[in-house]
């Protein structure tokens, strides 16, 4: 990871949406589910991000590294924060009427 790259391994767990203590199998299953949801032809950037995260976390050593020294993987804390922000999806959703009513009542 070069310093100008804003994505850092500290957030890879969040990109895959797995617990930090997840094992090989869980990480792989989650990765397969995500690439089904974000195939490379329709979501190339998302697919690359997911694949990068998977490559880093697919074995135990990578996961330990991400957990332990991932925080050293960035130069500026704001970059890491931005990367974390980027890991939150903001796709348009079509909520059901019941959820609309609930939100309206709030």
């Amino acid at each position: 990871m070069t310093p100008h790259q804003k994505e850092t391994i500290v957030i890879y767990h969040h990109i895959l949406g797995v617990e930090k203590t997840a094992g090989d199998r869980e990480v792989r299953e989650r990765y397969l589910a995500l690439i089904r949801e974000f195939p490379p032809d329709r979501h190339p950037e998302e697919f690359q991000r997911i694949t990068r995260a998977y490559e880093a976390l697919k074995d135990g050593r990578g996961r330990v590294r991400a957990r332990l020294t991932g925080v050293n993987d960035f130069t500026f804390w704001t970059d890491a924060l931005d990367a974390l922000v980027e890991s939150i999806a903001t796709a348009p959703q079509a909520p059901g009427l019941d959820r609309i009513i609930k939100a309206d009542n709030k």
Partner: protein
Amino acid sequence: MAKIRKKKSKQKQRHGNEKRKRFQSLTPDAIRDQATAFLAASRYRDAILAFREVLKKGGDKDLILPDLFRAYRLRHGQLLAKKMPREAETVINLGGQVFEALPRITPELLEQALDFLPVRTVMAALKEKAAFAVLAPETEKRLGILLVTEDALDLAEDLPEDARLRTDRPVMAAAAANMMAGDWQGALHAMRPIGRISPYADLKTFARAMKAWEQQDRSTLKKALPRLGENFPFKGLRALLAEYADRGSFKSVDIYPDTAALLMGPGIHKLSCRDRIQQHMKPLNLNGMAAACRDFARLLKPESPDDVLETLAEIIGKGINKAYEDDPVLFPGFLERLIHSHAERKRLFLKIESVCKDFVSHATPDYLKTLKTEFPDAKERGTAYALILLKIAGIIKQHPHILYDYDEDLFDILAAFSIPDSILENDLNLLLLTLVRHAVKHDPGNRLAFDMLQGISAPLAEHRKVLTNLYETMAAQFDDDPAPCLELARLYYLKNAFRKAQAILQTAYDRAPHDVRVKESRALAFVISAQKNLPKEKWHLVDRDLDRAAEFCLPILSTVITGKRLLAEFLKTRKFSAKTFHEQTKGFTPVQQMQCYLLLQTDVDSGDYGIDTRGMASCFKGLQKQITGLSPRELMALLSPLDDRFTPVYPTLFYARPLLGTTGKILSALPPEDLMSLVIPMAQNQCTDVAIRALKKKAKTAGPDHRTLLVFYQTALEAISANIFPCPELAALAGKAGPDLRERLRQISRSLSEVAFYPLKEAFDRFEFDRPVPPGYGPRPGPGYPGDDPLNEMISDLYDIMMNAMNEDSWTDPEEDWEEDQEDWFYPRELDVASIFGNTCDPGMAKEFIFDLAVAADGIVNGPADPWENPEENFIAALHALLDLMHQSGIRTTGQYREAGRKLAAALSYSQLVLEALGRITSKAAIITTPEHQHFMLGFRSGA
């Protein structure tokens, strides 16, 4: 809190009772007038009280109930505005009762009822009073929407048979199910029979709008939204969708946060959360920052926000430490506000301290203890240990001065890893190799550990031994990687283990036959083999090996192979032949020809072959004429030294030495950067004078930044060649430089330490040129130090200091008779032992040992009282007895030893005598056997 609430409730009750009492004296009409006045003044609660009082006093229900109902509706709105939903709920119940009790339902009252009452209550009242006739078309529309949104479509059956609300009900029932599930396309499809005049028409339009949103179809959305009636609910949703239709984004996210999150996912608020966190960093607001982090964590992972909190704590911890320069209070304060669990807070704090800082941290030993909980799996824990060790190795590699400072934290860390701290007495490279070796022990497959080996030089045999072991482990661990095999071959060649090197290179070739580096090394192995057979004059073997090397067709080796062929030719006749040279090199460019010549001359100059060199000088001159006007790139290709793989092939890697001559004129064609890249090889090959001259010349024409670098190099080389220290000129250059240039100078300084000697070497490592290097501080990294044992140096330095002190202030009088008053002089009667060695130390024994030490020191300095005495032995014994006593008294850490040494020296009147004895002692290694002893002596010196 509960008490306050109770008190307030009592106050309200009293207030109501007082009002009721006041109403008792009034007539119903007067009370009604007052109630109407209350309504007009928005005092709805008082209005309700008053209207109820009128009813109690027998007021006209037909007149009062509609007003009371209106008052309830208005009170409901007021309570909602005050964000009192529970109270509003009560008002709905009470209002519902009044609505049911109304003698007559007017269209106006029905509209009001639909504003706040549940549709089931309204429908029940309508049914009871058979008042469906009051339903105006607009009211029907509102009712239709409410029947769907309140899941009460079944009530439509109560309506008259011809009512559209009833006739369209089956269609809407199917569509409602789709709408609830978010299937807006399905809902729209189901609502095809719903016409424009249907009371459900607005719902169909709404479904169309939602489908358009789903498909991001702004034009349809733009058309659909204005068609929704005034009374259509979901104000926030409609506003956001209208904004999206107009501008493609939301504007009122903060006004309707829940609805916005519904439409875009919770991530819609991420930017505002991020901004909040950033705003709270400067000026630092720990509470605000923690609150923003919690919101952010909930946004990102609503089901387990703690997971995100840890990541945020790590990120922001690093930010706080950087922005506030490791203020010791701020980050723990932030953690306290962010993480509730004390254990978790502590673990995170230790983690950040241990792995995020650019220096060895005192927190690391404590953090290592927590790893068992954090990584219960032994293999993962091993990886964690290895990573931390590598981190420490990286820090030491980056900041070698840590070793000189004898950082106590480093001792504690090594102890935590069960690494004997005696490795700190070794040089930097061996220390780094030991740390990597331990990392590999914890996690044998860790590639980062092997990557770390790349930058560690191994000048001594003991380094190479460790390095060989590590690469052997790596070669076994990564059985498809040729890199460790190549490194092993290099090390084997350095050990002259040619067969082993050949074998491992064959392994590398088997692993990656198409790898260029492997091919080069393999070809080079044949050249090395030929080289070995040259002095033995086994020409057939030389030719065979050189042919094999040539088969690889590697341009980088062509001049080397031709040079060796020529050497073999000339060896056969013992004579240089220009004709043969030109014949063999006729396919080469002038630069290659020159390179080939220079390589040949390097071999010939080694003196191993006894070739008649007549004709070589004229050949060289001829070649020199051919290479005039070379581009800087071509020149660099000629002047750059060979890489260290060629060590077994040539006696020196800087083969272009003859080209420089005595003036280095050729260097003037090089740009400053290229010239600077040649400085170290030139200094290593006795061309310092040429380099200084070239640098001086280049500095005259270079730009300001380059000039500083060139002058720095030049001044450094001058200092190195004359071994001048301290060097204020270098300090001044470093002081004047801006941050970037200073960093570059620091790198240059580090590289120059390779060619410098103590104390300049240490100064280059530390990048400090005007401060005297503290004597005896730590081991001297790398080769090139006078003396093998740093301990000896330290003691010599102590001796020098002592001698200087003696010259300034003569504390001895040679005429005095010491023997007579020895006991009086040396016995430390006034010494406060407890303040120096602690309460648990036996003062009698301590004074005895100090006395023995002083007598022995006197014996060393002034000669023993008895000729059969061995004062040196006594001195060592007394010192060790004293150190043991200190250890028994609870003095354990290096800091405690240092402090005790300092206090003792300050308290004794003859500390200088002890120091002088220490300087004169011959068996120095027997005195200081552990770092604790060394610290004691350092403390003693500073106290003296």
